[in-house]
């Protein structure tokens, strides 16, 4: 595939390395001369100096034959415009934008950007996972359909400890997939599986019923 990466910062650089390793044809577009030179010295001549939001630049690098355009500069507005120009001027089939302000996700989707990655949200989710007190962590969101996979921690004060899955009535559309227990005694829960303090429950649920599932499993 021919992939254009807009922005040669750290994200752009490591992304490009990974894509090159996979055998893709990759071109980075970067405004800053010194950044461009640094990349070209390290990875060979794959960095084009220019503004990836400019039609002229994108025309020069053959964007009309690109299979994908990935905009990963540090500025949401630049990523948005690069994707829109790629999409509407050059008919790039797939555009991906990095977003720093999570609020912009809705806007980008509305404007037809195919995939948005909110770096802020990704970092938050990873930190959430490491917080012992955080009751519910999002592991995966299935965009079409609204399902998600979450991890729920059972704290020592949970009133559901010792209760079996049969005694808890889970919200509709929710299913427990795995109970992770200290010492590696993990199990795929059955109706008779009982909850213990310190358990981490992996469950499939929906965005709308995640709160109900959390309170059902923790009783608090």
């Amino acid at each position: 595939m021919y992939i254009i990466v807009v922005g040669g910062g750290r994200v752009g650089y490591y992304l490009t390395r990974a894509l090159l390793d996979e055998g893709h044809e990759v071109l980075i577009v970067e405004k800053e001369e010194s950044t461009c030179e640094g990349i070209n010295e390290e990875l060979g001549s794959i960095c084009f100096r220019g503004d990836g939001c400019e039609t002229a630049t994108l025309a020069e690098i053959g964007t009309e034959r690109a299979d994908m355009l990935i905009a990963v500069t540090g500025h949401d507005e630049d990523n948005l415009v690069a994707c829109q120009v790629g999409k509407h001027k050059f008919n790039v089939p797939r555009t991906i934008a990095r977003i720093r302000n999570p609020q912009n996700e809705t806007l980008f989707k509305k404007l037809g950007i195919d995939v948005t990655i909110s770096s802020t949200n990704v970092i938050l989710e990873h930190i959430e996972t490491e917080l012992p007190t955080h009751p519910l962590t999002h592991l995966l969101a299935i965009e079409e359909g609204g399902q998600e996979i979450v991890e729920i921690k059972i704290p020592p004060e949970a009133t559901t400890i010792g209760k079996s899955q049969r005694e808890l009535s889970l919200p509709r559309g929710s299913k427990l997939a795995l109970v992770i227990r200290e010492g590696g005694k993990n199990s795929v829960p059955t109706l008779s599986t009982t909850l213990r303090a310190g358990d981490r429950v992996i469950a499939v649920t929906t965005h709308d019923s995640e709160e109900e599932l959390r309170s059902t499993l923790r009783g608090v």
Partner: protein
Amino acid sequence: MKVVIMGCSRVGAWLARLLDAEGHQVTVLDNDSWSFRRLSFPGLLADFKGTALVGNGTDQEALKRAGIEEADVFFALTQGDNRNVMATQIAKHIFNVPRVICRIYDPLRQELYCTLGVEAISPTAVFAQMLQKKLES
């Protein structure tokens, strides 16, 4: 009319004072309060009596504080084309402002966004054309 102007640039400030003098309810948004000095430069125009707010116009919360939800018109007049384009599209697609007008210096980008339904003006193209006309006359 309720008007929100993003960017208290020379043009932004001038427009704010013109519209304010005409009796419109104007709010100016800029991320640097230093820019607001332009609202009271003595000279050709009356002082601005509307609202000046510090905030980033590409941030939805800041736009809400500026009253974007009740605005009849939104102008994006910062120095950054992409910032203007993004703020304009937030105003249009998230807050459904009836009229949004945007400055895009780059004529190519201006043309693209016009085809995407954004009312965009390129001062570069307009001014060049004016100069060309000067020669002709």
